[in-house]
């Protein structure tokens, strides 16, 4: 196990490096004059050029990258063009809110997905199965901004039960109230994929020899399902949850904008619009790193759940 962990860690390190290059490269080719974008149309050209040189957006690429990554390693992603303050003054808070949202979403979608998927697997090929799969799929492909607005329309505007958005502050109860609609929006999108995976995993486990053994032992069906089937079908599901993490974080961009929820997603959307490149890079990089960590965690978790890996190969 230790050896495996080490290998995965080193791999992740490399991946992080590549990620940083990718992020920098893409951001570096952003066209247009940063200064002009910041100062606006009616600002004098002189002002624009002055600002550009102040921001040092004209240096050679490599040195700029080194400066950036160097800072990043020290947790300093430079100053925001927009707020004229260290990017890191803004990201942690945003990150925290986003994680809250992500967590809430997972809390809803994971059990839902697994139960739905397993249920579908048990009714494989029957109507129930079809309904679950297709409805999941349909939700998954309906853009967040449609699902979101519908939710707002119904629960915030029409029924007035829940707030149409805002940031999760204050009492836990209040925070949860704020989080429900956005996380439901994300749930709608993720449920399809998750249940699909859970279903596949369950079907495989159901067809396996050890399930047959358990049944022929004379175990009650419930025990067979809970102890033997689910236990094994969960592994692939965990994997997919992790790989969907990056997807979830992507969904944040749209969802947070829609619900005016001040998290990384909204921060990224704003920074992109405002050409706040240091902020954009930092945020995107962190989102990527986060997703990567999730994959890593999932891999380790799976490894740990799977004795084969945990305890090494045969005997």
């Amino acid at each position, binding site marked *: 196990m230790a050896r495996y962990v080490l290998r995965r860690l080193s791999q992740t390190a490399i991946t992080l490096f590549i990620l940083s290059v990718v992020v920098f490269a893409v951001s570096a080719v952003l*066209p*247009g*004059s940063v200064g*002009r*974008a*910041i*100062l*606006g*149309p*009616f*600002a*004098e*050209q*002189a*002002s624009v050029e*002055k*600002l550009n040189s102040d921001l040092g957006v004209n240096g050679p690429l490599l040195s700029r990258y080194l400066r950036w990554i160097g800072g990043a390693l020290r947790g300093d992603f430079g100053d925001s*063009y*927009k*707020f*004229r303050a260290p990017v890191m003054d*803004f990201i942690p808070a*945003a990150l925290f809110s986003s994680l809250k949202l992500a967590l809430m979403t997972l809390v809803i979608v994971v059990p839902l997905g697994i139960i739905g998927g397993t249920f579908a697997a048990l009714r494989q090929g029957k109507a129930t199965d079809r309904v679950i799969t297709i409805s999941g799929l349909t939700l998954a492909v309906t853009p967040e*901004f449609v699902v979101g*607005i519908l939710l*707002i*329309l119904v629960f*915030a*505007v029409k029924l*007035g039960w829940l*707030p*149409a*958005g*805002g*940031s999760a502050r204050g009492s836990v109860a209040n925070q949860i109230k704020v989080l429900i609609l956005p996380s439901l929006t994300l749930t709608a999108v993720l449920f399809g994929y998750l249940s699909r995976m859970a279903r596949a995993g369950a079907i495989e486990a159901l067809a396996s020899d050890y399930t047959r053994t358990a049944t022929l032992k004379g175990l009650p069906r419930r025990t067979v399902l809970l102890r033997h089937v689910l236990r094994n079908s969960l592994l692939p599901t965990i994997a997919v949850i992790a790989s969907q993490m990056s997807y979830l974080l992507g969904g944040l961009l749209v969802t947070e*904008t*829609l*619900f*005016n929820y*001040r998290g990384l997603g*909204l*921060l990224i*959307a*704003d920074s992109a*619009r*405002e*050409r*706040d490149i240091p902020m954009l890079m930092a945020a995107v990089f962190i989102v990527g790193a986060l997703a990567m960590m999730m994959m890593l965690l999932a891999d380790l978790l799976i490894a740990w759940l799977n004795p084969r890996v945990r305890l090494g190969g045969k005997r």
Partner: protein
Amino acid sequence: DEKASTNDTTAGTGGAAQTTAAGDTTAPKAGGIIKAAGGAPSAASATLDPVLINDGAGLTLLSQVGQFLAVSQQDLTLASSLATKWTPNADGSEWTFTLNPAATFSDGAQVTAADVVASIERLLNPDNTSNSLSAFATGKLSPGGVTALDDGTVLFTLNGPMGNFPYIVSSDNYNSIILPASVADTTNFAADVMSGKIATSGPWTIGSYDATTGIKYKPNPKYWGTPLLLEGLEYIFYTDPAAQVAAFQSGEVDALVKFEVAGGESLLDNPDVTVYELKSANHRQIHMRCSEGPFADKRVRQAMAMSLDRQTMIDGLFQGKASIANDTPFFDVFPSSGDRPMATFDVNKAKALVTEAGGGFDATLYGINYFEAPDLAVLLQNAAKAIGINLKIDLRGDYYDVNWVRTYDPSVAGSDIGITDYGHRGVPDVFLNAPLKSFKSVDDGAGVWNAAEFANAEYDAAVDVYSASSDLQSQKAAAEKIQAILTDEVPMLIPYNINYLAATKTKVAGVVPTAMGHFFTDKASKA
């Protein structure tokens, strides 16, 4: 004389009652907090630095704490604020402003001429790269042009005659709030106001401010005007207009500082919503390049103008909440506009013109892709198609990415036709200069945004005459000449000017939005 102050001596905004306000019948009740939804200030405005602020969100926030010499009201006439009266010399090249002796800053100090000089000169100083430079250029005011005659009077010496000058130091030029002369550096304005380091004269001071989420105001204890009714004022920043409307509908906020018809339809005929509809000079310009390319031929440009069914446009895009414009910046909001011939809608004539000019062609329509511009683009496309011109739409994130204006960077291609947005101004001067006057150099402000590459000596002269004239009659005369030229040459299409829309819940009364984007709350109350 026209520009002399009205007898209104009340401090603050002196705004007229809201135009379409529904329920401001009952006597306003004291107390309560208003929560307003608005956009987050842009990069330049993020610290609320009065020198740099360049967008609606920024000015809305700034004008809660800072005050101007005069306030441009909803009817675009000037009301006194820190200054009680202003008078020009004979040719309107010198203006004398008399300050209100009652006016004080939040630290109790009186507002003096020295403060005015310091504040305005800060904006004029090129090193500070203020957003207001172009405005002052139009206003013909240069560094050193401001002098204090005594504690209570300030003299503005201009480079030439300028009839509309008072607007340049009014709320119209939203950067020009007056701060104590002692203030050296405004780069961290919001923070400094919060900490009391910078004293301001407005009804509110800043309680807390987070450039990403919103701002909370608390009453200015030493406010010199009529006492506030509200206990507090709060702005929440939104990125997505739809989100704003949703929040407003579901009652998270009491007011929308500004909203668009598209997406806001549900508010328009809603019993418990007060909609404020203000005439404004906010408009879109569709420039057509006169120097080269398919639009170089005047007849093609005229044809384009005739191809537009402007009334339908207005109905379709704004549910009528806009006014037809005649491809000139002289909108019905401007007193100086005078009475104008209505633009004609005549597809056949347009077709004919195009054929004369050598028949239809393909072109790419560039433009911004926010506000209603995408829809406008579609409408233009349809209209053009009808007269044999095929427009391929290519809207980019925003104007400056594409550099389809060659004035700053001759190397770029420029564009034959493109849409951009112009915000509200209290006077047409900026519109007449930046995008239309012949471009000479970046430093000489004229024509810096002349995407149409329109160069017409006659026009330039006419504009100079207009700017110089300080009385309405002569302005109207000059205006008619200008309009004649523009409607004949058609360097740009200006199909409409959009009414400014703000909304509050009916329980909110007494707020005074302006087309510029101010949202004065000094007389506001909440039931």
